[in-house]
Every structure is written in C-alpha cells, then in structure tokens.
C-alpha cells in the first residue's frame, strides 16, 4: 500500500499535514503526537521580526468551529531558525515553513533567510484576515498575488506554496495567478472572515472585531474551492478547512487535493492527525486502494 505523495519534488510519507498556526512548530503537540508519523509539519507563520499579535480576546467559539484573531504573533526568523528548525529536524517528517509579512520586502527577507536552512518547502501566507497592514490584499487581488508570487519565486531556494484566501469572488482566478507566477503548489482554504457579538455585553467577542473562521462548519466551502482549483490549475493542491477525520481527508483528496492539513481540529482532539493517518490506511485497505495517488481528483 502506497500512502506517499509528492509535491514539487518533495515526497511526504503520507498526505497528512498540520495547518499553519494550529500546531506551533510541533513542540507543544509532540507530547500527544509522534511527529515522525506525519506527512509534514507546517509551522506557525514567521516574519522577519517578532510580531506581538492582536489584543485579547483572540479566540471565540462558533457553531461547529471557532474564530481566531491571533494576529500572527511570532518570534521572528532569528529565533525560529535557532530554535524551531533544529527541534523539527530531530524528527523524520517534512518541514514546511509558513512565511508572513506586511510588505513584499518582509516576505523576501524571511524567504532568503530560510534559503540557507534545511527546510523542505515554504508556504506563503498572503491571506491572513487578521493583520490589518495590507497583507490580505496580496491574497484578494489576482494581480497583487501574481506580483508577490513572482518576487518570492525569484528569491526562494525551496519550492513555494501560495496559501489562498477563500474571501474572494473567484478562487480559480487566484489559483491561476499563483500558477502563472510560478508557484509550485497552492494550499487552501485559509479561514473565512467572521464575527461574533456578545448581545448581553453589546460588544464584539474578539478584540479585533472580526476573526478567521475554521472548523467543520467551513468544510463544504473548502471542498468546493479545492475542487474548483483542481479543475483550474495543474499545480498540486494542499487542501484544508474543517478536516476532522480520515473521511474528510479523503473527501478533499477526491475533490483534487494531493495532501491535506488538519487545523482547528487539533484543538478539539490532539490526536486527530495520527488517527487520520491510521484511518486513511484503513480506508485504503477496505476499498482495495493500492496507491493513495489513485484517488486524487477522482470525482469529476
């Protein structure tokens, strides 16, 4: 039985990854999950300098999911290279570093610093809805996305994954822009912008007013967008958005994803990723699937 998938020349032992921002750099969850058994750890976004993030409350519960407005708090690339990469290199898994920034230069600085490190891929967060400084525009306008992808590709030594925002009219337009500018893969969906009001206090639950929605509630939107993109571009897709178990992972793969990421569900069940790895193997056995690659995009 073959569970390995390959994206831009990087082979992952299985298609189960972690969604950026929900798994730190793996340290915290290493008490629950054997990182050696994951396809990849996708790290929390890292910027060129430390970011303090947003005021609290930063998280809120919603029906079948949650809102977050962390604001990409992170220690910056120096600490990350010194502490987080060596930690992850102890494990037999692939490392995908999520990169965030406020300007193109910010992104390029991080990408260049990472060029000398032993990480496997870069995921570019151009779609965080919780950072006001303008990064979101990169992810919501096709020409901006093209430009930043083009710049990053010129500087990156590792293969590049552009992470797409679902908060757009036409996700395929964004996917095509990323592909045209040379992105090696795309990942989607980032969170959907939402809001929650405390009617007794008459105030927003999040200090940031809005937050990014994740969890099972958004899965149908994510599956739809993955399907649309899979039929619009040739580069591989990493699917995410409310994935809770092996069935969900397989649904995304049948829609066209080559790999999948577990996000908010890590918080609900810290063993989600490992149970998913096992559940996918069980499904393959039951359904007599020799190679997981055979189901990618099989529903047309």
């Amino acid at each position, binding site marked *: 039985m073959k569970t390995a998938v390959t994206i831009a020349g990087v082979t992952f032992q299985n298609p189960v990854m972690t969604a950026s921002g*929900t798994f730190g750099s793996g340290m915290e969850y290493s008490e629950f999950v054997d990182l050696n058994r994951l396809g990849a750890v996708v790290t929390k976004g890292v910027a060129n300098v430390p970011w303090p993030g947003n005021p*609290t409350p930063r998280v*809120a519960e919603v029906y079948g999911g949650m809102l977050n407005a962390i604001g990409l708090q992170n220690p910056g690339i120096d600490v990350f290279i010194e502490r987080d990469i060596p930690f992850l290199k102890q494990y037999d898994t692939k490392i995908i570093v999520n990169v965030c920034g406020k300007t193109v230069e910010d992104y390029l600085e991080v990408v260049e610093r990472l060029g000398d490190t032993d990480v496997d891929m870069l995921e570019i967060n151009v779609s965080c809805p919780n950072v006001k400084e303008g990064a979101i525009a990169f992810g919501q306008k096709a020409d901006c996305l093209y430009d930043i992808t083009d710049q990053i590709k010129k500087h990156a030594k590792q293969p590049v994954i552009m992470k797409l925002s679902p908060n757009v009219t036409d996700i395929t337009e964004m996917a095509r822009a990323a592909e045209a500018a040379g992105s090696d893969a795309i990942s989607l969906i980032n969170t959907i912008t939402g809001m929650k009001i405390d009617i007794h206090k008459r105030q927003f639950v999040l200090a940031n007013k809005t937050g990014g929605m994740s969890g099972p509630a958004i899965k149908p939107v994510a599956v739809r967008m993955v399907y649309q993109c899979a039929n619009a571009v040739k580069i591989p897709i990493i699917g995410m958005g409310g994935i809770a178990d092996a069935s969900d992972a397989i649904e995304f793969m049948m829609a066209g994803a080559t790999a999948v990421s577990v996000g908010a569900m890590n918080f609900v069940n810290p063993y989600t990723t490992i149970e998913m790895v096992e559940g996918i193997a069980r499904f393959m056995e039951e359904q007599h699937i020799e190679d997981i690659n055979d189901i990618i995009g099989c529903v047309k």
Partner: protein
Amino acid sequence: MEQKTALKKKETARVLSQTRIAPGIYDMWIATDLAAQAKPGQFIAVYPKDKSTLLPRPISICEADPDKEALRIVYRVAGKGTEEFSNYQEGDSVDIMGTLGNGFPMEKASGKTVLLMGGGIGIPPLVELAKELKERGKAEQILITAGYRDDNLFLAEDLSQYGEFYPATEDGSAGAKGNVMDAVAAQGLKPDVIFACGPMPMLRAIKGYAFESGIEAYISLEERMACGVGACLGCVCKTTKKDSHSHVNNARICTDGPVFEAKEVEI
C-alpha cells in the same frame, strides 16, 4: 527523535459523583490517573459532547486524590458547555485533557505567612493549594480568604481544614461585608506572600495592594482558550518580561501560566 512518554493526555474518563453545592456551582469527581501528576493551580480541559461547541472548557483542579485516582473540579455553569457538564451523573463519561499549566510556586511560601485569596469561581483551586501547603509545604502560617456573593459559602468547610479561613460576602450575610480586600482589612491580615485566583477586578486590586505593601503575589489568570497546550497563542497576557515563546512580552496563560507573579503581568 523517538516519541517520549507523554505527561499530558486526552482521555474519556468516568464521573464518580456530581453535586450542586451552591446555585449554579457544581462539584464533580472524575476517575482519572491524571490525579497523580496534578499540581495546585493546574487545570484540565473538559470537552462538551454537544457537537456545536467544539472547544474545551478550561476548569481548575479543586482537589486531586492520587490514591483513589480521582480529580475534583468545582465550576460555575456559564454557558452551553458547563450546562452540559452539570447534567453528568455518576458513571457518565467525560472527555478531559490534562494536566495543564503550571501550578502555584509552593516554595515561595516556605517559612512565610501565606495568604490564599479566592473570589467566586476562583475559590476552588485554593482547596488543593491549601491542602498541599498544609500537608507538604513549609509555610509558617496559612491564611485563607474567599469572596462570595452571599452566605452560600461553598468549599468553606474544605478550606477551613487547612488554614485560618476568613470569608467575605458581597451582601454582608457572612464574614466581612465586601470583597476579599475588605476581609484582609477587617482581619488585619499581614501576609508575606499571596496566592490568588479570581475575577480580574479582584486580581487588579490584589496586584495594587501587593505592590503598595511590598508583598510577593502570585495570581492565576483566565482568558478564552482554544488549544490549552500553548500552540494556538489564543490566551496570552501582556508581561513585563519577554515571553518564552515569541519573545514579545505576550505570555501564554495556558502554558506559561496560568499562575504569574503579579508584578510581571499587565492586567
């Protein structure tokens, strides 16, 4: 790297007993071997079964009985999740993760007069704390004050076993009228070190009092949480020192806390 044996785990445990000890306040004993590692001031995450509410509820550990492999939580019904928990009965399953966070720094009480201060649903963690201090700690004297709404002095009997107990009530129906600071004034308590847990206005008052009186104070903070294990960076508080994770003076309450030295946090 090979996988280490985990200290934290999520598991489906059994409810040993549940009683309502005050209006909206419930007292649940849970069978779990997490009791062996529980420290005063730590908490567990409790997961509702209602699938519309996915995130765990952080609930402080009120008491741990390692011999019986049992944990006690005392919590207030504040929403759908805790409402659900309050309906659990003996034998029901309960999904928990723990033990989480760092406890109170017991060693700071050595040879000192320690004052435990609890307000409302911040009172429960004082039970295990007082018990540990009394049974294994080296404090010279243990003073305890707890602030209630009225004379429903839940956990007063438990607390009285371990130290001098001074309640305060908002309506003046028992103990000092007012809050825990009023009890401190009324009783003329002179602690060397304070361990406190309760609502933010109370913690702010204690921080101010400790600063003015030159007393060390350790306070347990609360914030909306998602992961409970330090990964999501949802539950931070501003700190005077660089935090261990991001070095941006935003410590994670769930893992760097929930107990902080009062002077090190901006609240």
